[in-house]
Every structure is written in structure tokens, then in C-alpha cells.
């Protein structure tokens, strides 16, 4: 009775709340981007997390010499450039009139200073080991002198290195600890205003004096939303990465869905330092036992593409179409196993010297382009291997635990993945050789093939694109023959946005900077 009245009053209060609150949702010209993690660090080179989304958040504030759009390299702070083979130098003609957010002009001195500063305080995304120095060589010209030829220079340094304002950083001894507002002064299209760590939200405000013109929106906001579908449909966000199944519903509600080329690969990591995985034949047997198509069919309902075994993406300009492949062939797999001395037991599994052939497979919810997702890949692979006769112990672990085990060689098989396979072929070095990436979890760290290692070294020094391509072709071939890790498939990477906001988002060719497969290219808000 009185309780009933009480509840009625509460209900009335709620209704008032609804009416009032929906009024506060009216906003000016702003774009909101949804992301499931939210927090990727403060947007400056030393503070953003060393992952794609972290770099992207920094890229709104800081500019590079060159940039990329959906078709390839485009000018940014540099309007033209060329390589001087005799002097082993890259010469950049910079645009005139670019300004820092505090009003001061951007000069070649800033570029030269940036190189010096990054040499003193390394920034993981840019390798400056082969750059001797950078010098201002004209009112709007800067020249980079290389110690030795460095093929990935344009993408690595030109397209990834953010230019720092000399007048601010020359006074800063320890950039990691520097948190003043001046640490976020760049010359990019947006000025960094706020990052709320707990909520995972970012606020950027347009920089009216941006050298390519005033950005199309006044404010750019990142919000954290676990469910991109709900965020898009409710208007909470205007751009988000989505799962393939969400496509029909979103398109029926007027959202535009865009798809990336193959920029991210799922791999089966192999501990090739222990028996029987140290034998190349065994790894071949695994490859024949695994059906890439079946994994895509069963675990992802056909959404994805079979991967090239040569590590580089099939959509890459330097993809070798003659890379050896391993079509699904269980009988061939068994042949190989038997030639290695394994015997088929009565239970249908293989034994050697009385011991069962048993492998442990680690799976975890891997972060694909910033979003963690558990999937059934492990289950399918287990079924495939067991049907050939190899016993598999499938273990689902938390991601960092799996990563730590892989890094310490405390595993046999593990499922992992990474992006960057559309970027510069330098990714091959990083994902194959221990020399470049002993500390990486995704690298195969395979030192057994001398020809491979030699090629990896020389491809970095070859400045002639045609010659380099030949080397890259051969690298893919050898990698596919040796199989230190088996590439499985490219997941379908999709993003959806609300076209009514008047912004067209796209996937960058080759990925943003080093190959980040995310559809948040700043050019969408400028042109």
C-alpha cells in the first residue's frame, strides 16, 4: 500500500530523469570513436602504449614528414623528397607555414633536433641506428645522412617518426617523466586537451592553423565501449571496430561498413628448439595436417582468408605468389610422420619408442587490432591434429601468461597473431630473426638457416626497390620451406561508421605508419 505508492513515486522520478537527461545529449560538431580498451596512454611518443591504437592517438597531435592514405605515401610536413645515392642522404623539402600548437613555426631545425633527441632517448617505433645525423640544409630543407643504406627509411623514419618542437624538448632531460602540458605540443590537426585514465576517454580540439586546413570537426573524442554495436546504434559513437557478424544489422540501420585488406595474421608459434618440432619434416607434417580453410570455416564462419606461409600479406606489393603452400593433406602428413619413425598405435595415435606423440597447444584471447577476443581456433586445430594421429592438450590461458611462456621457450605450440604484415618488409626481420627481436613474443626467433639470415640483413641495405623485392621474394620462399611458425589466416577486419556525420573513414594502404590496421587515419578529418 504505502510501499506501492513509494514505488510509483520512484517510477515517476525516473521518467523525469529520462526527459531531462536526454536533453543534455545535444552536441556541436564532434566525432566520437569507440574502443573497447579505452586507455592507451597519453598521446606523446614516450607515454603512449607501444601498440597500434596508442600510436594512432598520438598521431592526431604530432606530425610526420610523410604520411599514407588509402593509395600510398602522401606528403605531410615534407612536400617533396628524393634520395641522393651519392651522398647516401634523403633530402626533404618541407612545407612553409606549418605551426606548432603554441604558435611558433615549424622549421628544419626542429627535424634535426628530433633526430638527435630520439637518438638520446630512443622511441621504440623508430629505428635511428642507421641515421648518422639530420641537418637543416636550406630555409625549408632538411637532409638525413645515413651511416649505411637503410631500405625501410621512408616508412620507418619518414612516415613514423613524429617531429618534436625543439624549443620545448631541448630543455627536458628526461622525456619519460615530463608531463607538463608542453609535452603535448605538436603541429598536428588536433590539440590534445584531456585524457581521463579511469574512464578511458580522450578529448582533442581542432587546431585552426593546421597547415593543411582547418579540420572538419571541432572536437574529437574517444570513448570506451565494450559493445561497438550498441555504441554505434545508440549514437554513443560514430566509428568503431566491429565483428563480422554485426555487419548486416549495422548496414540495415544505415551505417557504412568498411573492410581492410589482409593486415593482421594469425599464426601458430612453434618451439623449434625441442624435439620433435626441431625437425623441419615434422613442421611440414603439421602444416599438411592443418587445414587453413577449415579453421576459417569452423571457427569464424567463413570470414577470413587463408594466409600465405611466407609471412608477408597476400595483399602486400612484395608478396611472392610462388611461395610454397601446404594444402590440407592428412595422408601426406602421416607419411612424413612415419618416415620419421613414428608408429601408429591401435588407438589411432602415433607413438615412438613407446611414448605417445603428444603436444601442448596454448591458446588465449588475443588482441586483434586492439580488441581482445576469444575464439575457437584452438579447438579446430586440436581436432585436425588429432584426426591425423597427434595427441593435443589444449590449454586456454590468460594472454600475458601465454606470452610469457612463449617468450621463455616454455611451450610447444601456441596460437598468436600480429599486424604490420602490410607494412615495410622490415617486419620480416622483426618476426623471424632473434637479432632484431629477441624480446618479442611474436617473433619466430629462428637462427638455423644461414641463407635466410643473410638475406634478412642485406634486404635492409638494398635501396633499389626491384633488387630488394627479389630478396624479399626469396625470404618468403625460405620461410615457407622452413616453417619456424605456421601462418594460419587473416581475420576479416571490419569497421563501421555513421555516414550522416559527413566523414569518410578508410583503411590506410599498408596500415598507418608501420602497418597499423586501424581505420583512424587523420586525413579523414582533414580533406
Amino acid at each position, binding site marked *: 500500500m504505502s510501499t506501492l505508492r513509494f514505488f510509483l513515486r520512484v517510477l515517476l522520478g525516473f521518467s523525469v530523469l529520462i526527459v531531462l537527461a536526454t536533453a543534455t545529449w545535444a552536441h556541436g560538431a564532434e566525432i566520437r570513436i569507440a574502443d573497447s580498451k579505452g586507455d592507451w596512454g597519453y598521446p606523446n611518443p614516450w607515454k603512449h602504449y607501444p601498440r597500434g591504437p596508442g600510436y594512432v592517438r598520438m598521431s592526431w597531435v604530432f606530425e610526420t614528414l610523410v604520411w599514407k592514405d588509402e593509395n600510398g605515401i602522401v606528403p605531410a610536413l615534407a612536400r617533396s623528397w628524393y634520395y641522393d645515392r651519392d651522398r647516401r642522404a634523403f633530402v626533404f623539402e618541407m612545407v612553409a607555414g606549418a605551426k606548432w600548437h603554441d604558435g611558433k613555426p615549424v622549421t628544419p631545425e626542429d627535424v634535426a633536433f628530433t633526430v638527435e633527441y630520439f637518438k638520446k632517448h630512443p622511441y621504440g617505433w623508430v629505428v635511428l641506428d642507421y641515421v648518422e645525423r639530420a641537418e637543416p640544409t636550406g630555409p625549408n630543407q632538411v637532409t638525413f645522412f645515413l651511416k649505411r643504406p637503410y631500405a625501410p627509411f621512408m616508412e620507418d623514419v619518414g612516415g613514423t617518426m613524429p617531429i618534436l618542437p625543439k624549443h620545448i624538448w631541448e630543455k627536458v632531460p628526461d622525456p619519460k617523466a615530463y608531463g607538463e602540458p608542453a609535452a603535448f605540443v605538436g603541429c598536428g590537426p588536433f590539440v590534445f586537451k584531456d585524457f581521463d585514465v579511469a574512464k578511458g576517454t580522450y578529448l582533442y580540439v581542432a587546431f585552426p592553423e593546421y597547415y593543411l586546413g582547418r579540420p572538419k570537426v571541432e572536437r574529437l573524442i574517444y570513448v570506451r565501449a565494450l559493445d561497438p554495436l550498441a555504441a554505434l546504434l545508440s549514437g554513443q559513437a560514430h566509428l568503431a571496430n566491429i565483428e563480422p557478424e554485426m555487419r548486416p*544489422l549495422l548496414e540495415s540501420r544505415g551505417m557504412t561498413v568498411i573492410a581492410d585488406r589482409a593486415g593482421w595474421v594469425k599464426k601458430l608459434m612453434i618451439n623449434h628448439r625441442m624435439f620433435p618440432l626441431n625437425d623441419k619434416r615434422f613442421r611440414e607434417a603439421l602444416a599438411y595436417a592443418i587445414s587453413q580453410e577449415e579453421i576459417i570455416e569452423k571457427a569464424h564462419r567463413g570470414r577470413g582468408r587463408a594466409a600465405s606461409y611466407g609471412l608477408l600479406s597476400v595483399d602486400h606489393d612484395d608478396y611472392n605468389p610462388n611461395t610454397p603452400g601446404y594444402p590440407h593433406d592428412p595422408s601426406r602428413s602421416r607419411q612424413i610422420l612415419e618416415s620419421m619413425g613414428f608408429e601408429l598405435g591401435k588407438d589411432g595415435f602415433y607413438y615412438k619408442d613407446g611414448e605417445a606423440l603428444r603436444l601442448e597447444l596454448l591458446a588465449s584471447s588475443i588482441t586483434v587490432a586492439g580488441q581482445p577476443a576469444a575464439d575457437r581456433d584452438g579447438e579446430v586445430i586440436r581436432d585436425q591434429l588429432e584426426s591425423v594421429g597427434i595427441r593435443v592438450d589444449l590449454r586456454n590461458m590468460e594472454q600475458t601468461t601465454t606470452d610469457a611462456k612463449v617468450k621463455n621457450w616454455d611451450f610447444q605450440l601456441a596460437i598468436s597473431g600480429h599486424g604490420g604484415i602490410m607494412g615495410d618488409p622490415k617486419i620480416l626481420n622483426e618476426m623471424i630473426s632473434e637479432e632484431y627481436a629477441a624480446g618479442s613474443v611474436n617473433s619466430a626467433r629462428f637462427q638455423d638457416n644461414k641463407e635466410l639470415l643473410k638475406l634478412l640483413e642485406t634486404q635492409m641495405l638494398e635501396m633499389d626497390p626491384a633488387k630488394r623485392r627479389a630478396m624479399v621474394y626469396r625470404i618468403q620462399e625460405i620461410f615457407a620451406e622452413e616453417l619456424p611458425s605456421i601462418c594460419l589466416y587473416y581475420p576479416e577486419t571490419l569497421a563501421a561508421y555513421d555516414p550522416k556525420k559527413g566523414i569518410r573513414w578508410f583503411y590506410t594502404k599498408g596500415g598507418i605508419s608501420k602497418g597499423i590496421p586501424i581505420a583512424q587515419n587523420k586525413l579523414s578529418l582533414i580533406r
Partner: protein
Amino acid sequence: MHRKVTATLKGDKWFITGAAMGGLMALIALVGPYLVPYNPQEMSFQPFARPSWEHPLGVNDGGQDILSELVHGVRNSLSFGAMVGGLALILAVGVGLVASWYDGVVGKLLMSCADIFMAIPSVMILILVAALFQPSATVLALVLAGLSWPTTAKAVRAQALVLRDALHVRAAVQMGGSAWYIMTRHLVPETFPLYLVGFVAKARMAVFTEASLGFLGLFDPERKSLGEMIHYALRYYYMDTWWNWLFPAVLCLSVSIMAAGFMAISLERVLDPRLRSLWG
């Protein structure tokens, strides 16, 4: 006394409903797995297929038959929940009663233990356990039981402390009843309602935790469970699979807990003579 109890139980509506539901779930759990046509791990069907004669509940995202998944899940989840509930209950009652009786140093020590166990965030313990051991059902059950006994132990202790001062207990002490006697004859039966509530609560928590473990990626892919089913079904909530995928799993869970709850209510009424008069 037993004949009277069973007779009363048989006539009690709560019990009949509860037992019927419980019986149904138990039947599914015990016999179901042998009756379903498919292996729940078999991923060879058309994903997200609508319900049909071959697949009465349709197919899930991995191409597995939902009905088979459900039946196996019921068996695994119910046994998991019961295991955790039982273990936690034994621990809780034991510790709670001992702490209430020996309310000096021993009691305080035990309650401190309870506080410490309660205070540690379970998320961390679960990750630690999963990393160091295999996240098998038994290990997980032990861990969850170990983390959840404190709350019921405290409630048992609180109630037992009150009971200790009751006239009949004090009389028993005066008449020379030993601690063991008093505990078994008086305290244990009289705190009975708390057990059932506690058991059901722990079992429920255990099964729900299974689904949350999906967040951490800690479920055991070899074992189908209702929690895992619900986790995946929720991920694809927009696929319009409410009725054939999510709902059955949630319903099974709900019915199981309801069965336990109803039976708990009726057992309370019947076994506690003081309460009988209240229910008429």
C-alpha cells in the same frame, strides 16, 4: 520420525515442485549425454542455423549442436556447482561452529582467517591458479570453495553465538552436555536454514563464475559448461539467438536453482519442529 517426515514431505507443495524440477535436471544431467545424437565438441554443422528437426535448438557460433551442448553443460555445471557448494559448506559450518563455541583465541584466529580469505580479490587468485595449475574443474572447485566459505562461516558463527545463549542450550550445558554433543544435537540442526541458503548461494556463485571466467579466458575448452554457453551466447546477443541459445541455458540454470531453493524451503519447514506451526 522418519516415516512422518517423508509423509509430510510428500504432501508438501514446495517439496513436490522442487523435487520435480530437481528430478528433471538430474535426469538430464545423468542420462541426457547418452541420449543426445551429437558430440557437443563436433564443429561440423552450419553455424547459427535455426532450430530444425536435426537440431532442435539450432547450432551455435562454432558449428556445434546447441541441444547437445546444453545437456552436457547441465551435467558439468550442476556437478561443479554441487561440488563447490558442498565443499564450501563443510568448511563454513565446521569453522563457524568451532569459532562460535571456542570464542576465545581459537575463535578469533579462525575469524581472522576468514577475514583474510575474504579480503583477497578473487580475480587475482584465479589468474594465479590458472597460470600455475591447469584450470581443470576440480582445481577450480577447490579454489572457489576456498574463497567462498568465509561468508557463510561468519553467518553460522553469528547465529550460533545467539543460540548459545538460548535457554535450552544453556540448560544442556548445565546438565553436562559436551561441546560435541551440543554442537551436533543443537547448533547444527538449528542453524540448518543457513546451510541451505549458503549451499545454494555458493553453488550459484560457482556456476556464474564459470561464465565470468570467459572474460579472463580461463575456461577449459575440453569441457562444456552452462557458463561458457551463456558467455558465448551473450557475445552474439544481436544475432537474434535469444530463444534457442541463450534462453535454454539460462532457464536450465534458473530451474536448477529454483529446485534447490524450493526443496530447501520445504526441508526447513519439515525438519524444524518449531517452524512447523508457522506454516500450518
